[in-house]
């Protein structure tokens, strides 16, 4: 099951678009006026990457995660991260079965297609790393036994950047595991009006019914893998990465893994636009969500109140696009 299927010769872009469109519409019934965030979430889903949703409380982080999970007919688990949460709660534990006189593996919360990790920075680093390791490897090893995780596998973690008391912020290396970071931001006045109106009596989440299946999503993920990436575009991503490493506002540039994930995200973005090849515009569209949470600004940039998203936009602006010849 861990074998990655080779890319099909022909890419069924229509199927990708229809599945992605259905998921998007489904989520949009719950989250008002956050098209961009929803689109990024769907893109990450198709690119088989994990999502970090970061924002102040009450703007709908958890709602987004839940809605995405609910839209797909698959196994969903939700973990509320607390300081006393143990790694075994995530991965699972071997329990001695009195009847069979054998150790029996009880699967943890991670064994699901969509894992919603709420307030991930409240758990101890030990627990965090248990989650993050399995995110990368897509398998869990307990007592020498390896258990693969189901496909598709998507972790959506939320994080509150404001409250710092009693939290364990994710270290850089671990943030790198997330393909993209989304900031929800406050809704617009009209969206908020609609929300107050419709959410008053019953949560729209309850009315949400799955629009697709896990198997279908998996097929679309494979479809996306089949998109062509030209030499010119690979050159462009390489240039972006190296430019981030020498940018004077950045203490830490993008890792090679970042480049890899950027390409995968760009591929999904292109597929959603109905193209069988990836353009520089796809890379540019995904650059901020994919790169902004991985790079570290210099002290100077922090003092100048320049966010990393801002710096990444500047990076994109300045980097030339090779013509591939």
């Amino acid at each position, binding site marked *: 099951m861990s074998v990655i299927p080779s890319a099909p010769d022909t890419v069924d872009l229509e199927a990708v678009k229809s599945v992605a469109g259905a998921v998007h519409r489904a989520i949009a019934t719950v989250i008002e006026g956050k098209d961009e965030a929803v689109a990024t979430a769907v893109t990450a889903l198709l690119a088989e990457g994990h999502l970090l949703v970061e924002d102040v409380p009450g703007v709908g982080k958890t709602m987004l995660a839940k809605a995405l999970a609910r839209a797909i007919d698959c196994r969903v688990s939700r973990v509320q991260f607390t300081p006393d949460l143990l790694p075994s709660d995530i991965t699972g534990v071997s329990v001695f079965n009195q009847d069979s006189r054998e150790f029996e593996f009880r699967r943890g919360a991670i064994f699901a297609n969509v894992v919603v990790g709420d307030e991930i920075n409240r758990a101890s680093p030990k627990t965090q790393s248990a989650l993050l390791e399995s995110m990368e490897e897509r398998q869990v090893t307990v007592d020498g036994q390896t258990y693969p995780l189901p496909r598709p596998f998507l972790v959506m973690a939320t994080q509150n950047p404001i409250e710092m008391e009693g939290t364990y912020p994710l270290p850089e290396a671990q943030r790198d595991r997330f393909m993209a970071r989304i900031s929800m931001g406050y809704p617009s006045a009209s969206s908020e009006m609609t929300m107050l109106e419709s959410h008053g009596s019953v949560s729209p989440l309850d009315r949400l019914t799955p629009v697709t299946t896990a198997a279908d999503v998996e097929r679309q993920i494979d479809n996306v893998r089949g998109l*062509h990436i030209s030499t010119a*575009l690979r050159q462009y991503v390489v240039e972006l990465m190296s430019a981030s490493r020498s940018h004077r506002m950045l203490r830490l540039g993008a890792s090679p893994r970042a480049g890899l994930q950027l390409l995968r995200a760009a591929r999904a973005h292109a597929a959603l636009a109905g193209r069988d090849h990836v353009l*520089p515009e796809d890379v540019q569209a995904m650059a901020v969500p994919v790169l902004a949470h991985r790079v570290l600004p210099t002290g100077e940039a922090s003092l100048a109140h320049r966010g990393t998203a801002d710096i990444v936009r500047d990076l994109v602006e300045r980097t*030339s*696009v090779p013509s*591939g010849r």
Partner: protein
Amino acid sequence: MRHDERDWVSRGLWAEGLVAALATLSVAWPLTDLLREGSWLAPAVTMVVLVALGGAVLRSLDVPPTLVALGQLVLGLAGLAVIYLRETLWRGVLPTRETIELVGALLAQAGTVLQTYAAPAPTTQGVSFLVVAVLTLTAVSVDSMGVTGRAPASAGIPLVAGFLVSVSNTGQAMEPWYFAAVLVMWLLMLAQQGRRLSLSWPSAGRRESRGAGDVSEGPRSYRGLAQVVGALTVVAAVLGASFLPHLPPTFFGDGLARNPEARDVDADAGDVAFTETMDPGQDLRNQSRAPVLTYRTTAISQPPLRVTATERFEDGRWVAPERLTSALLPQDAPIPDPPGLGEDVPAGEAEFQVLDNELEPPHLAVPPLLTGLQLDGAGYRYDPRDATVVLQGQPEQYDATYLTLDPGGALPAGVGEQPALAEQFDEDLLAVDEVSRDQVAALVEEVVGDEDNALQTAVLIQSHLRTDGGYEYSLELEPPAEAGADDPIGGFLETRQGYCVQFATAMVMMARHEGIPARMAVGFLPGTTQEDGTRQVVAADAHTWPELWIDGLGWTRFEPTPGVRAGTPPAYARSTDEGDAAPSTSEVPQELTPTPEPTAAPAPADPTLLDRLGDLLPTVLRTLLALLLLGALATVLPWAGRRHREAGVRAATTASERVEGEWQRLTRSLSDLGVSTPPERSPRSMRRHYLGGTTMEESGDRALGRAVATLERARYAAPGTLGEDEADRMGDDVRTVVDEVRHTSPWNQRVNAVLLPGSGVAGLREGARRLLRR
């Protein structure tokens, strides 16, 4: 394309054409001072209006700019032919060989008049033709640059060139309104263009919708600023010029003395003092406009008015002659025939009528070769030695008759052959100034060579001083480096700078050295013609000239002084080949009704024209060669540019390489047209760059969009998915885009892109680099 009525009118640029025509006419305005009669005015206005109308109509019909200019040129030539050359046209339409001959004759005649006359010159048919032809060409170039080409700034060049003709030839300070008129018209042209540019951008709406701010606000505030700046410029230019100190008179600008501002400086300034000192230098600086003499004459080519003459040169200056009463003829005796004038010399009699005489006695100004004199009241006596009239009282008015020599090529043979016999003349008439004798001798040797004929010798000396020797007319004499203060002749020959006295003295001394009796005559230039047809002589018209004894002609006037403050050389004393071979043309300016008859007498005109062409042949060949070379050079850059632009397409082997090549052609062609090459960005952002930097029709927009999509597929899609037909279509789209951008570019940018493409320079540089590497 919409073809409604408003479009039709606005495309014609009628208002702009009108202003351009007015600008051309305002350039011609100062010519009214340069030419005596206004007979050229009506044809000039007709032609300028014709050119402007033709241009507007052609533009309205949406004819390409090049053809508009060509059409105007053809129209102008046709108009000129109908006005001036109608009789020679075959069935009144087609030019014949006679037409060309007539043009040659008219131009030759104009050349003669302009060379021999100081302003104002008589408006002969030839002069009128030349002036109107030049104005027509100016009108065509102003209109096609400023209106059709939408580059009124460059239309300033033909305007200024036309204006320069007037400025450099009036010989006096120009009235400020002439300049102001041209300036205002030109500024109007610029303002019109600016207004049109800012208010009728074809893409104004599009720009606005992109959020580039409100376009209607900007031009309005700039227009106000431009109006203020323009008005200030005109005022500053006119005021500044009048506050500038007027420089001492020079060859071109010496007419400052006639500055009307100085008219009433001094009531006594009209007095003429030269007869005491025999040097009119003081009078020449006199700024008074008070007339010394007002007269009428029946002759068109009026010789200078003679007052007296002297033969004694002592201590570096001329001394006024002693009048012995015994030498004078009895009172009111008839004037004797001019001595020495051969019977067979063709001469006509002209009348001379003075209406107002302010010259104080005993002097009287009369034309040379006087034959009769009637004084109003006062009596006169005549000194036959130097042909001077001596008066007791001052007559208010007087009449005279005199001979005008009209040799017209028919000077009898043998004139000047016989050397003058020294014993028949006063020794003063042959005395060469001792101080400067060596210098004069050396110069005469150089100028005259071994010419024996006295007339030819005199003509050689005259041409040397007047044209060939590099002498300069100046009222200010520069101190010579070598010659001493007691040697004014040597000083003049060294500095080659002086006014009439120096020129006349030098000629007298040179002639005497050759054994020709010579004396210096003092008098006035013919003066300026007034509106009522009379002529007025002021103090500053004072003049001196040499008179030489030529066997067969007697005492003969010559005119060695160059420039505007000098008389016309007499017909017999112009350069010999002109006088002998082309009598009809040299004579033309003297005719009362300026209708030259070159067609009636083509035989003598033909050889001159051919001779002149023969003389010009080496120059023509050299010019042709230079033009050929220039032409060859001019094609190198466009050729290299084309190769450079199409390098990518030529080198392509696959469809996607061809697409890249086409894109390269697009960027390089547009950069030739002044659209900057986009930085290396994604195809879509390069498209945005071009949309922001150009104005295109919708079809160009669409073609650019298709080209960008194809480029995207060539770069980023899986290899092999791009077909050859797509590459072909990309080529078409690139052509469409380039054509549309070219169509909306200003005229000068288009010419630049064709003749001096930046891609040509880049191509040559690349080629050179490749060669060096090899």
